[in-house]
């Protein structure tokens, strides 16, 4: 399973022809206490760079973008009861949604873990 990162601080785990998407530990640290996550419903068509979800911290709402084209297959229902999972396990149980992979070539433009780490260090 390969993990990719966007420069908007989303991560995407690719497993066969589906992918799991969330926001990075760096992102949750910047946002602070997460109080609500608005997820796309199953069947929602996403396009790379377009709006996919909204994450609300105590102080502000922030958009989460789709890392690639595809269709949402499932939202993480655990976030409805416990949005703070995004703070405590951003790159694990705090995932946002799963999606199909519309165009695998789009993954080539994303960062791997080492590249993302040096990207964050540069911010």
């Amino acid at each position: 399973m390969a993990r990719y990162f966007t420069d908007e601080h989303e991560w995407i785990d690719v497993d066969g022809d589906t992918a799991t998407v969330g926001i990075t530990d760096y992102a949750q640290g910047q946002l602070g206490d997460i109080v609500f996550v608005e997820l796309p419903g199953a069947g929602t068509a996403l396009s790379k760079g377009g709006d996919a979800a909204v994450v609300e911290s105590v102080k502000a709402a922030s958009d989460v973008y789709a890392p690639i084209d595809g269709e949402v297959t499932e939202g993480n229902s655990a976030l409805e009861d416990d949005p703070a999972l995004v703070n405590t396990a951003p790159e694990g149980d705090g995932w946002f949604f799963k999606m199909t992979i519309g165009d695998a070539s789009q993954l080539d433009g994303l960062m791997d873990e080492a590249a993302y780490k040096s990207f964050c260090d540069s911010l």
Partner: protein
Amino acid sequence: MSEETEFEEPETGTLPLDAWHRAKGARMVEFAGYWMPIQYEGIVAEHEWTRSSAGLFDVSHMGQLLLSGPDLDAAVETVLPIDLSTLKLGMQRYSLLLDDEGGVLDDLMVSRWPDSLYLVVNGATKWDDIGHLREYLPDEITLNHLDEQALLALQGPKAVDALARHAQGDLPLADLTFMKFGRYTIAGHDVTIARAGYTGEDGFEISLPGEAAAEIADLLCGEPEVKPIGLGARDSLRLEAGLPLYGHDLSPETSPIEAGLVFGINKRRRTEGGYPGAERINREIVEGTARKWVGLKVEGRMPAREGAEVLVGDAKVGVVTSGGFSPTLGAPIAMAYVASEHAGSGTALEILVRSKRLAATVVPTPFVPHRYYRGK
């Protein structure tokens, strides 16, 4: 992911505690022309600490002004709707800077000092306020901007315990009730302490020399009850307390009567007038206003933020001016101007957030009861 921060201002100065905040690990943002700490360990933790113990806030960006001169009270009463004949030495009162149409230019605190009046005004408006006061006050009135002074707010139920170990003055802190102030020393430095704040909790605002700010902040944060708290929690605390924030809930487009601030127009002035906007303000006190500022409890967990429309059916009846998630209540809360016929407590409304309709109910404020110390 992108963050829509509401704490963005150009041109950035540093305040006396800038290095102190950074050394304590604060995340600094630009606000009102200065670098300010928005949070240390996290807004919710800092919010809850202030409600249960004591939080130290740096509000040195606010403007501290000293007015003096002949016939001072009469001169100031032409600018502010305050009754200075009832403001005795050692007392502080809330007042408003109004334009000629009765719109709010700022809200402020006025204290009676010996031979002078001391004003604390909002940071984002202080330069405009100074210009306005210089323009409207007679030349004989001297206006000193005390820009060498820092301002700290120690807020929370245990603030009095921590401060009493350091503040020495003629008046014991136990006798300093809400909206009174006195002169004290802390570690040998002259300070002025007012029993006031903007969190809804008991607490104090301490005006102190900028060069002593780090020493005094260290002393207070050395007490087990006290932690430094950022502006993020200051905003969530004041929202729970139902207190308006200038630039959000108050502006030149709002009248203080719409905002429920009739107490800011002192009784004698309501009949006498003689302050900017008096005609409109005094008419609104008698006749009421077309819209009112209300508290809203929001169903679910999704917060409604500033700018969200308030609906009844398909009709827009209002707009949210402050909104967020209440850590104390574990639910979203908001403040909004709504048409007066929909402003009654218990009225069911809807708020439009990103094309979703959130059910909301008009509720009395404060959302979390005030705990000001008014004496035993």
